[in-house]
């Protein structure tokens, strides 16, 4: 099977998966207990006023009509009006996406860089202090609850030693001048991104260490060593390279986090992002807002998977051949 037909098959699968996700997305919110108009608990709201609200929300229409309207609007990328804020869902998401992407990118790059380096270092120093330290710290970081570390950091650097901002992405109001604003944003990024790096590097380090240990036991590594190649070349050019594909997959699979955000981090540091938006929308039975946010996340997951598949197909011809051989 050629790359083109492989690509077409993947695209068709992608569309089907997207439709299934969107359908589940629609059904799940409606089978959950609770109704959007019940979120308005006001003794002055008469049953008639509640019915009028249902009409304005479009909830008085048959479920199939609602479903078709929902699909039609998503195709046009019209995410509708939020029930709770009465603002366009897309406007609200657009406001929050840059913050989530910045936080996620910095935290992600930091976690991956620190975790992969420490993983390689611990594999190269098996049985020594470095390995014990990395494994211990990695397991601790992996196991400890996110909110606990973040609240401790908030307390330490916001209260006992108050050198860090405790909320938001900028000072209120921000300083004048673009450099001052840039530095102000960086200052606000340190605690949320730093805490995420601290919490997230462990899984990267442990995963890299394990795959590296497996690679370092392979015959070709023994051969490379026997050839007298320098240690760093064996480590980085031979061992690390061979474990890169699964790490690349892991990177792609983590990318949707850039859209979904980190709910806990965003809550603790009052970070105006998508994660918190999704949580609020779900709690308030705000169908358009929650559906819009899930739609965005589903798109991100599917596109990331597609990119991973395409990258694999390009890098590793066996995948294309394997796909064709299955027919």
């Amino acid at each position, binding site marked *: 099977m050629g790359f083109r037909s492989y690509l077409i098959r993947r695209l068709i699968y992608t569309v089907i998966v997207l439709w299934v996700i969107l359908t589940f997305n629609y059904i799940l919110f409606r089978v959950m*207990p609770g109704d959007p108009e019940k979120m308005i608990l006001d003794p002055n709201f*008469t049953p008639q006023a509640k019915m009028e609200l249902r009409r304005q929300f479009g909830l008085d229409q048959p479920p199939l009509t609602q479903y078709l309207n929902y699909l039609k609007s998503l195709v046009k990328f019209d995410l509708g009006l939020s029930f709770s804020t009465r603002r366009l869902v897309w406007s609200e998401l657009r406001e929050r996406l840059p913050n989530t992407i910045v936080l996620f990118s910095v935290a992600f790059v930091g976690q991956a860089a620190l975790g992969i380096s420490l993983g390689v270092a611990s594999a190269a120093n098996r049985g020594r202090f470095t390995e014990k330290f990395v494994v211990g710290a990695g397991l601790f970081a992996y196991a400890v609850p996110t909110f606990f570390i973040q609240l401790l950091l*908030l307390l330490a650097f916001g209260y006992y030693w108050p050198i860090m901002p405790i*909320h938001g992405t900028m000072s209120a109001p921000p300083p004048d001048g673009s450099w001052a604003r840039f530095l102000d944003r960086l200052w606000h990024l340190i605690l949320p991104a730093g805490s995420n790096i601290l919490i997230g590097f462990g899984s990267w380090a442990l995963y890299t260490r394990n795959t590296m240990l497996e690679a370092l036991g392979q015959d070709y590594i023994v051969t490379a060593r026997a050839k007298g190649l320098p240690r760093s070349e064996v480590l980085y050019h031979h061992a690390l390279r061979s474990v890169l594909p699964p790490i690349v997959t892991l990177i792609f699979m983590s990318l949707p986090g850039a859209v979904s955000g980190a709910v806990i981090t965003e*809550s603790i540091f*009052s970070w105006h992002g998508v994660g918190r938006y999704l949580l609020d929308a779900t709690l308030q039975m705000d169908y358009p807002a929650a559906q819009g946010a899930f739609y965005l996340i589903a798109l991100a997951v599917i596109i990331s998977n597609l990119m991973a598949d395409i990258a694999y197909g390009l890098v590793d011809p066996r995948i294309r051949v394997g796909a064709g051989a299955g027919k």
Partner: protein
Amino acid sequence: MPGWIRLAAIRFVPRRVRSQVCREEGGRRFMPRKVRLMLGLVLAVAMAIGFMGVPAAAQVQFEAWGPHVDEIIMPIIREQQARRIAFERGESIVWSDLTQPADIDHARTLPYADMRWTLGFHMFYTCFNMRKAPLDSQVLRQAIAHTVDRDNIIRTLFKGYMMPMSSFVPQVSPFFNPDVPTYEYSLEKAAEVLDAAGYKLDPATGTRIDPNTGKPLPDIKLMTPTYEVAATSAEIGKIISESARKVGIPLVHEPTDFNTMLDKIDYHDFDMYCLAWSLSKNPTHLVSFFHSRNDVEAGYNNPGIRNPELDRILDLLDSAPDLATAKEAADAAQLILAREMPYIPLYSRPYIDAFNKTLVTGYVDMAGFGAASYNNPWTLLNIRRVDRNGRPIEGGTIRWALSEEPKNLNYAVASSAYEWEVLNKTADGLIISHPETLEDMPWLAEKWDVGVWEVEPGKQGTVITWYIRKGVKWSDGMPFSGEDVKFTIEFLKNNQVPRYLPNTEHIVKVELVDQYTVKVYFDNVSYWHIYNADLAFLAKHIWEKVEDYRTFEPWNEPHPTIKGYNQVVGTGPFVLKDYVPGEYVRLVKNPNYWRLNPTEL
């Protein structure tokens, strides 16, 4: 007994002494008026010294003009601990609406914190489903009421910081009836009431026998939110159930997912549940909660009470032509409800706010709303910065943390308290409540008349004539007049704006008599229509050009004529200058505010 006296009684007076000053009547406890007053006086002093913990800052006498600060920066801090840190770092002048006893205790230890404590309109209660056996029995409901130890709940779960509640109208409301009997906590009394009504205890099972069926009472399920969602509500459910079981009433606590609970309540599929309401100074909620016409799906008569005498009184309350009739009806309704016992009112949460007295002074305690509430216009007008010696100074900036994102700053659609926490600083109403008595005072309206008109032959309706104050300007300098009032009411009614549906549903027409006189006609008679016509007004010169009010984002739209302004145009003391979503809101003093200078009044 007024609730604040009872709270003070819990905190300062031993139980033995309390029981001595109370006399019992038919199983209900009363305290003689003179004793109440004396105790109130003594305890008011005790509270001032004991409860406040720290001496209060020198308060500026509240005035009806201002504001006295130039700018308010409202950083949005959603995390509770971060708000506490912001207060302690001096980054917020107030740590508002404290609810956790640990936070209140901590705030009281801060030397710069001035604790303000005000009764609120909150009500936590237990509801019975009176539609089905065995809770259709008044005696059984009254017996359960006797097993509820409010004082113990407040002491153990809230360290005494809540107000015991016995009536269906909050104590702070002018419509609270102090003569409503309280069902005192007494397991013996509960057993007596049950025995007398034939609910004999079966010694074998420890359960009461229902005299109507001759069988042991079935399990009565008490729904509360889960411990994860509302730990104290769940614990209260557990305490009430355990207490009732001691007298043989098989009450079973059932923590339930909140949305499932709301669904079950809507479909009347419950025995008992615990929840809270945030009420208002007016007793109109009694009509919503207890009139038989609201015993329908999605109606608020959740207990399903159907009492013709009560209906008649509630009809009178709903359509009262004047304040005196309304008060009389509210008093009578509370007495019937105390007998019928569709709810057991448990406690009311007061507003507890900590202000940083080294930064500000002049905040005003407002009954029912607290000193820092968005519903309190007096603090907004009177708050001032202080210098190093604690003396009030004019001007400057204050920082006041917002605990949630305001999200939508459009007057027509803003619905959450956080949105109105911002918008209320930019808007004024036709009338205003006195901070202590909550009596209506003229504000944008100089005066008003309430009359009747003939809607159709044989049917009368209320007509309210508003006399709008001359010289009031919008924040962009345009004059505010009756045309804006008429435009706003018609705009909200014609567009069926959801938030204002209860306000506009009875309005028939609005008539502009002259530039400053507006008549609003309603299709029925009700004193409460005064409040239905008092809205957040929309500037006609801005809003008549709005194509779709639902998607209009006035804070993002530049003002058509004034550079640097947006289209959030109000008549309030401040102007919205910036709103950076997720970060902060910035308000500056309205240079056109009509109460800037007392000499101009």
